[in-house]
């Protein structure tokens, strides 16, 4: 199949930058990278003309509740950069902790990422450093600062203190 070649190409392009490579589906490649390598990885994909940035999504992975008191793994946020080429999808995955939720902007390499980055900042509270326009995109003007609706801790505006707890 054609996508197998593309996935192989993507693996080669990101070989040096990726920490972990996974294949959740035959046509998909998930590459876990450090945020410091994000810009270089995006640049490498663009330079190799490997597809286009199709979507950017956030993911909130709170600490799983273990049997005991202590959570097994610390909770974190994740930014997923999905690149598509024909049927192949390569996802760059960047994990960031709640107390230091920053990722670099990739707009210098892919200008069309601006809207996605603004959405990520508003809905997940992942700060995108140096994004060209940091203004609010989708939430209402009167929406309180520091409340991020797509985080799992957010359960409605009537309990705003819950969102504040995790930071």
């Amino acid at each position: 199949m054609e996508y197998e070649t593309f996935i192989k190409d993507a693996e080669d392009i990101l070989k040096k930058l990726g920490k972990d490579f996974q294949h959740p589906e035959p046509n998909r490649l998930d590459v876990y990278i450090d945020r410091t390598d994000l810009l270089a990885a995006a640049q490498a994909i663009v330079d190799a003309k490997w597809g286009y940035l199709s979507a950017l999504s956030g993911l909130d992975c709170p600490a799983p509740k273990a049997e005991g008191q202590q959570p097994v793994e610390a909770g974190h946020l994740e930014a997923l950069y999905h690149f598509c080429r024909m049927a192949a999808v390569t996802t760059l995955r960047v994990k960031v902790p709640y107390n230091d939720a920053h990722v670099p902007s990739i707009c210098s390499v892919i200008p069309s990422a601006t809207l996605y980055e603004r959405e990520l900042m508003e809905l997940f509270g992942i700060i995108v450093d140096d994004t060209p326009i940091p203004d609010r995109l989708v939430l209402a003007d009167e929406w309180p600062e520091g409340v991020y609706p797509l985080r799992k801790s957010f359960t409605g505006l009537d309990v705003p203190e819950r969102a504040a707890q995790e930071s």
Partner: protein
Amino acid sequence: MQESKEKFIVPIGPQHPALKEPGHFEFTVDGETVTSATIRLGFVHRGIEKMAESRTYIQNLYLFERICGICSHVHATAFASGVEKLAGVTVSPRVKAIRTLFLELERIQSHLLWLGVAAHEGGFDTLFMYSWRDRETVMDIHETISGNRVHHSVNLIGGVKFDITPEQVKKSLKGLDFLEERAKYYEKVVTTDETFLGRTRNVGTMTKEQATVLSAVGPTARASGVQRDVRVESPYAGYPEYPVNIVLDEGGDLSARFIVRIKELYECFRICREILKNLPEGELSVKVPRRIPAGEVVSRVEAPRGELFYFIKSNGGETPERVKVRTPSLCNWSTISSVAVGHKLADMPMLLVGIDPCFSCNDRLVTVRQANTSQTMYWEDLRKYGVEYYK
């Protein structure tokens, strides 16, 4: 600030009677020429992705179908196919064919709707009335088969809700023949009418390079010669059995966007006929467990406006952990901010409509800075301004 004194902002919206949906655009102009444009969205932001996390997969199917009233079926298909992949179930060829039939019927009504709106923005109300009248034919086909004009509610997770009877096939084929004749007429109008071409030829031209850099999708990209169509690149539902011929145009201007969409209608008619005439056999639904196995899936489909992207994560429970929906209008907005610069203010209504923006799909808009004077203009005013300007 010295420079900004010479600039003039024209804010438009968020309420405007012509587009029927809330959107706020602002253009900075220097005399008649637009010098910049920016976006502020969210007037119809409903928090659907958050809502999805507290609803079961079946409830979510209905929720996602309601993201958009124009392309409801495409959302439901993207979601249902993603969940089916996670659950590891395969639907029958008949289900795939029925889904594909509706995907294409939906594209027909969406393109005809767009043709009407675009013609109206350009001041060609006769074409608007004609295309919307003819669109009723495809709405009737929808209603004949599904019982609904808008939210067809075709899908189940693991199948479709209804079969297609021979009488319905006959009625639908008759409707398609009529629509094909009309599409030929529209193609003639948009390619030969001088007044119309005056508003579309060499307006809003986007080169292939620009379209690629700006990650444009759908007919907007294809009108600039970019080969981007999920139906061809990564065939889903019934498209492996009913392959699509990609429609491209190198023009890149508004005129090319009209031509691409009208030519796509012919492809839609062809595929619908093929499906209706050779419906494969198969069960209408398969059983899908209530709890979906843990995992992540990417589901991509080609909506009438371009690539629609779903990312679904399951934690093994009855409700999804996360569903990300990236709609095509979002990708195409960034083309407006770039292409608008250098054009006349009078071209803006047509230019905006050229990408076929869908607010409820995606809900995002445009704002401008650097100005100390501003004048409020309603969309209707801007449309009239455009029409008067070109009289």
